[in-house]
């Protein structure tokens, strides 16, 4: 890997990546896509281990990590935006 990657997307088709180091807003980061590297400009700071969007997501769209849906976007999410409990809901909580 020539370029130092600062985020990781674990499966092709993932629409979020995970920060491997704390990332600052407005930074353009290299994302390890498994078999390649993609660059994304961040809209907000992303803490270590937290996620940001790799593309624009509509409200109701599945958030894909590990090649699987980990929940649904509860609002539109722009590419490079922070993705967490404020804009994603899981489907597998009891009664929720």
């Amino acid at each position, binding site marked *: 890997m020539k370029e130092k990657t600062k985020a990781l997307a674990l499966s092709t088709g993932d629409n979020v990546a995970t920060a491997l180091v704390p990332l600052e807003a407005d930074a353009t980061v290299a994302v390890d896509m498994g078999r390649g590297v993609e660059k994304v400009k961040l809209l907000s700071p992303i803490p270590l281990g937290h996620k940001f969007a790799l593309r624009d997501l509509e409200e109701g769209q599945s958030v894909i990590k590990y090649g699987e849906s980990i929940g649904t976007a509860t609002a539109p999410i722009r590419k490079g935006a922070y993705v967490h*409990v404020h804009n994603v*809901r899981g489907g597998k909580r009891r009664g929720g």
Partner: protein
Amino acid sequence: MIHFQGYGRSNGKAGTRNHVLVIPSVGCSQGAAQAIVRGMRGAVCLPNILGCGQVGRDRVMLKRTLVGFGISPNVFAVLLVGNGCEQLAPEEIGGAIEPSGKRVEIITIQNEGGTGKTVSRGRKIVKEMIATAARQVREPFPLSELILGTECGGSDYTSGLASNPAVGIACDLLTAEGGTVILSETPELIGAEHIVARRARTPEIGRRILDAVAWWEKEAIAAGQDIREVNPSPGNIEGGITTLEEKSLGCIYKAGSGPVEEFIEYGSSPSQEGLIYMDTPAHDIEQLTGMVAGGSQVVVFTTGRGTPCGSPIAPVIKITANHQTYLGMRDNMDMDVSGILKGKEGVERAGRRIFDEIVSASSGVLMKAEKRGQRDFAIFQAHPNI
């Protein structure tokens, strides 16, 4: 085709180790069994405390587990040490191990006339077994002979992010060679069980996975804990885990991306190749024991915080992506894949390194838990002893 150097067995299987195994058929004979292996290189004893008082499903699992360890290709010969009046008689266990073709001997404390005579007769038998085992040499076997157990414990944010995905790549490389991978820890599936069930080869396999998850969930609720209500925990959310699906997927991802070819009960042997699902607790040692009883000759174990856990008869490869844990627990950690998190090593390359380590460990390279004599053993029980 890639090979490992293993020990051939008369039933066509191949072991990664050549242990003489002493099995106390009941907790009462454990002291004598431990005394028999004391100071003997090449022999190990299972610290079994059960053998009386298990009924129904528990008795079935107990017998299957002890027999599974005896049959394991990692075992050259077996000495069963009983007390003499236990409910699970050593003859019943020995009779089920014998068809595997290996030497099985049985002694009981009541027959031999006390612990002293039992230990001296047992030591004589074990010495002979060790001498015969020492004459056997390793030979090349295809990786299709391997059953790899997968496990994670003492997880932290690095587990789902780096070590588990890297192990997943290694698992895909192994199944591509015709090898078998066991995924287990049913309580860890909760929240992502629909995803694993969807990956099942048949609807029946998928249904059994969902039923197993429902059983564990019900048991946890009966014990006072609703797993779906407490997960992801505030600590998980702080660490970046957003949903329960995400948390469970981080664990499941370590077994690779293949379809689930079979669902098996605790301690059972797979009858298919590829990715197999075994219903076990998430309890590290009970899970490890179940997979090894099912025929796993080698195990990969990812950890974030660090764990010393090891099997009496199988190499357990300890992998962490937490560099501080690797440095702080060098006594226990076999592999450091923290380069993934520093952007220094791609997850694919780390996966290949793990795959190579599986082949090395299977060919005789000792892992840290073996070097330290860490021989953990505990059999899952669904109900109290009677």
